[in-house]
């Protein structure tokens, strides 16, 4: 047995790792909306520590739905409506124009912004104001991006959300360092949540976004832990013989579905977090694993090889009745329902490669969303527009994002090690 190092980072320490995920856009939609994001600067001319408009541009472009007018092409940098010459923007093909400005008082930044329809020469969003500290300037930029995205597309933006993921660095002596990380949805501002010399896997957000559950081998055996993100406080919630894995929060946040093999075989159980009451859900000699709750909390979808090969099934918790959901191909695993509950994303094997697929639940139609080799761990953004997954790229584990219509994709490669098992947060509100 090896000696085990575990390190829990408290938020108070604000431990920021140097390694950041950087973005590499590989595919966007054919006819993106052209938007000009005019530099948003301080009225007193002092430089801002974060380039808000550049963050907004990057967010909107990453969605694949927007094409941002390069700053160098802009003929002027208007800060107010009376400084806008719409003709100048029409010449550039601009459809929407975002302007804004920043004031600062005693460390509080006040950002105001407005959105204009260039063709209609009218304001389509009245002046908005967001305030925050210097450390919140990135969040302010994400918040602005969300408003712009929603105003133009009608879909709620998910830029002001976060991801958790596992980063693994293998050392020359054969040992590994496993880190559970949290970052903004664009990969910026990574924060260490847990570090261990033993495996960490299967991180998931609680429905309110305040806690995470994950599996850690720090006791030399797998165990499920729940960690409070604000305080760093954590609790080991399972300690059974055999597998302790695949935690999944119930929609009300009171229970975890977990996989235990304490009775000799991997089965799905629900665990009430308040009193640790355990209820067995599945009962089959095959592998039953990877539970995920339906949005009404009445059912659980899961992976089982009870038909010989792994497929996705759904169990009704009240009756125990099990129904098979996937029929195409001989390997479908780790299903997750989209936020609207109409479709399911999963890992699908096709001719030896593993890809992320989406299945419409009413028709059973299956579409491949990715086309690389070893794609896994899909997690859908809370607005249902994109999903994040892990794959291998240039010999390393990387995170990647693809839109649910497969039209847009980008990579979030790590500067160090392999990154994997991303989980997209819920909305924080």
């Amino acid at each position: 047995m090896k000696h085990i190092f575990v390190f829990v980072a408290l938020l108070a320490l604000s431990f920021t790792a140097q390694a950041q995920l950087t973005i590499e856009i590989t595919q966007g939609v054919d006819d993106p909306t052209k938007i000009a994001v005019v530099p948003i600067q301080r009225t007193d001319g002092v430089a801002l520590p974060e380039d808000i408009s550049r963050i907004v541009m990057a967010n909107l472009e990453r969605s694949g739905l927007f094409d941002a007018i390069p700053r160098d092409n802009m003929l002027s940098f208007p800060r107010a409506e009376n400084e806008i010459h719409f003709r100048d923007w029409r010449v550039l093909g601009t459809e929407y124009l975002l302007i804004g400005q920043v004031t600062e008082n005693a460390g509080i930044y006040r950002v105001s912004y407005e959105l204009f329809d260039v063709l209609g020469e009218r304001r389509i969003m009245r002046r908005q104001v967001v305030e925050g500290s210097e450390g919140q300037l990135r969040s302010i930029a994400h918040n602005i991006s969300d408003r712009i995205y929603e105003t133009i597309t009608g879909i709620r933006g998910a830029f002001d959300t976060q991801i958790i993921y596992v980063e693994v660095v293998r050392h020359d002596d054969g040992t590994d360092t496993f880190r559970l990380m949290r970052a903004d949805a664009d990969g910026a501002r990574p924060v260490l949540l847990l570090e261990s010399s033993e495996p960490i896997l299967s991180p998931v957000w609680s429905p309110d976004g305040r806690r995470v559950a994950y599996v850690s081998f720090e006791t030399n055996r797998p165990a499920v832990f729940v960690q409070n993100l604000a305080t760093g406080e954590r609790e080991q919630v399972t300690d059974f013989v055999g597998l302790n894995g695949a935690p999944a929060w119930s929609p009300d946040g009171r229970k975890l579905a977990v996989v235990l093999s304490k009775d000799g075989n991997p089965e799905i159980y629900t665990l009430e977090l308040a009193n640790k009451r355990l209820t067995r859900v599945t009962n089959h000699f095959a592998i039953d694993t990877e539970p995920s709750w339906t949005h009404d909390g009445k059912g659980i979808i899961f992976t089982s090889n009870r038909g010989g090969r792994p497929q996705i099934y759904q169990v009704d918790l009240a009756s125990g009745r099990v129904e098979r959901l996937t029929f195409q191909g001989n390997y479908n695993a780790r299903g997750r329902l989209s936020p609207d509950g109409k479709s399911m994303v999963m890992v699908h094997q096709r001719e030896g490669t593993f890809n992320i697929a989406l299945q419409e639940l009413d028709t059973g139609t299956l579409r491949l969303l990715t086309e690389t080799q070893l794609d896994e761990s899909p997690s859908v953004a809370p607005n249902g527009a994109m999903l994040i997954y892990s794959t291998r790229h240039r010999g390393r584990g990387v995170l990647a994002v693809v839109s649910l219509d497969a039209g847009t994709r980008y990579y979030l490669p790590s500067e160090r090690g392999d990154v994997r098992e991303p989980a997209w947060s819920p909305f924080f509100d």
Partner: protein
Amino acid sequence: MISNVFKQGFFLAFVLAFLAGCTATDTMDDADDAAADRADERGVTTGTADRDRLRASEEDDAEALDNVIYFGFDQATLQPESRALLLAHAERLRNPGNNVSVRLEGHTDERGSREYNMALGERRANAVRDFLVLQGVSRDILEVISYGEERPAARGSNDSAWAQNRRVEIKY
């Protein structure tokens, strides 16, 4: 828990150093060195590892046995070529001596989903355990643990690496 591990390690090191110090013979220097070596090791290991080391010295005379059993993709059934090796381990483990426990560590290749692989790794380790038990090994000395795809033996995303990673390691 970790501080306990340290305490245990230091305590054992202290006891060994103490015993060595009491051995007033002309080999005392050697004994001291040996104790110091062990103390270093103990600083970074746990109590169970101590048993491993003591036993390993007993086995120096015994023929070294390969300790890895390989499997096919998404398979947890033993392959015929593993039989001879498993029988040799069973032979050794039928009369294991005191305090011997064996960890059967199940692993998979990187393909497919991680938690499914965690379950598959356990199936593989269970298959090895069940075979050994059928050969008369006491179930009580066999501990099964799955690492799924988290601890690959070989790096790389190709058939050769995958074949090396679909395995159960028999760890004395």
